[in-house]
């Protein structure tokens, strides 16, 4: 049953050194505020899972929180490279980063299988690519009816899933809408979970009969963090701050400018700082 806590308390309760953590968000609803809190709490030796590690994972990697990354596309969408990720892979700064590399289809299927309580996923994939040569977690299974060889990968079963959503109700049920990504699957696949939300409402009120809702009893912790997805977006609340994504390319290119930015904007700030972004963006969008 979901417990409603502050973000700092939730991260302290759910995320420990050495955990495997999936902070998901497919462009939309990326849990930036929660990522910052993990950095502030100084977590180490994390294995991070994500289809599209972007700015927040670049920050976690650059701050030395991460031992290993499981992923399928690591870039700054529409902009270019993740410089901290590249620096870790190419130069081992701040330390060596292990990687387990998949395709999007594989990652989506691995979350789906995790949510479904299966040990592995099968799909038609990885044909003719070099990825199976560098990733021992890609195997083959034969269909017992047709003889077709399908790709098999282990299900994702993270210790912790962290997502951002639009709304929770007082009982701790979570409602998402728009680009859904793999967030529902990540939470259902994980042992523990944190959901940050734009707002906690008394009741969701009138909604689609098939609204995307994660019931309270599937959730670990809920924290109200308005603006918590910034510079990503929250459909219905504020748009994506594309300018910041472009700006990140400059900030993260050099180690010094990166560290300076992190000090000012993360280490010396609190989750409350995100609320200002939310308000600013909401006004700008109106």
């Amino acid at each position, binding site marked *: 049953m979901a417990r409603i806590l502050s973000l700092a308390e939730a991260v302290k309760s759910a995320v420990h050194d050495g955990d495997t953590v999936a902070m998901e968000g497919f462009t939309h609803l990326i849990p930036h505020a929660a990522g910052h809190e993990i950095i502030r709490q100084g977590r180490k030796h994390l294995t991070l899972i994500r289809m599209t590690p972007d700015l927040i994972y670049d920050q976690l990697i650059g701050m030395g929180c991460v031992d290993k990354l499981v992923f399928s596309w690591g870039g700054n969408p*529409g902009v270019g490279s993740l410089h901290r990720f590249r620096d870790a892979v190419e130069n081992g700064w701040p330390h060596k980063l292990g990687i387990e590399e998949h395709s999007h289809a594989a990652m*989506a299927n691995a*979350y789906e299988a995790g949510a479904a309580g299966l040990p592995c996923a099968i799909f038609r994939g990885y044909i003719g690519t*070099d990825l199976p040569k560098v990733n021992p977690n890609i195997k083959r299974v034969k269909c017992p009816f047709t003889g*077709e060889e399908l790709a098999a990968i282990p299900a994702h079963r993270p210790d912790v899933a962290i997502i951002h959503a639009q709304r929770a109700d007082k009982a701790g049920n979570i409602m998402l809408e728009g*680009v859904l990504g793999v967030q529902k699957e990540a939470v259902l696949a994980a042992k523990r979970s944190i959901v940050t939300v734009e707002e906690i409402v008394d009741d969701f009120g009138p909604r689609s009969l098939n609204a995307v809702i994660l019931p309270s009893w599937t959730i670990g912790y809920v924290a109200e963090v308005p603006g918590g997805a910034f510079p990503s977006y929250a459909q219905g609340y504020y748009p994506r*701050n594309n300018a*910041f994504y472009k700006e990140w390319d400059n900030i993260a290119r050099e180690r010094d400018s990166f560290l300076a930015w992190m000090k000012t904007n993360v280490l010396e700030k609190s989750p409350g700082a995100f609320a200002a972004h939310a308000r600013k963006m909401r006004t700008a969008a109106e």
Partner: protein
Amino acid sequence: MADYKPNEMMTIAAARALKNEDVCFVGIGMPSAAANLARLSHAPGVTLIYESGTLATKPTVLPLSIGDGELCETALTTVSVPEMFRYWLQGGRISIGFLGGAQIDKFANLNTTVVGPYDKPKVRLPGGGGAPEIAISCGEIFIIMAQGKRSFVDKLDFVTSVGHAQGGDSRAKLGLKTKGPTRLITDLAMFEPDPETKEMTVVSIHPGVTREQIQENTGWKVRYAAKVAETPPPTARELEVLRDLHARTARVQGEAA
């Protein structure tokens, strides 16, 4: 004839390849510009799908990311990412997949993973994303890439997504029933696979481009079809629609910042 840039010729040539009845899996960047140009000009009924789950989307501006709110708001509906990859891509419901890459070889295999050795890369690229399965599950593949010796290479550092494999019937022997890359559109020319060898072969050269220029920007010996056409230059209307789209995009992305 209007003045235009090679990039514009490339985007417009790619757009022309899309038909009204196509269902197109669109990536960010030039594929997105080409697909939306097609939709806003000769193929208003073309169905655009982005891997973020947005089905039949009709953005008025180009998205910076593959999951921008604009794509969701203008879509028929939006499904989860697992559903997108299972029911829509693997389910065989996409006729055209648009791909690009950092490196391509003459059989249109693509590398978006690393430059240099995998374990000690010179450049760590973003990785495959959707490409490995887009390459095998879409009915056919269009590739858009600007030409250059560093990108059009004799041997890929890493095969991220398969094209015609080692040529001939080697793709089919992998068990694939889809066509693979049927068009490669560059800033200099249009390539199609040779019916027998499957080597990507120039079928049309953009106006003002020479065979020498094409060879200088290609890391293998370029082959030409028996009949090579000249690509019709962009029409005034095509350029206008494309430039309007880019201008609208710049305006909105500026505002949102």
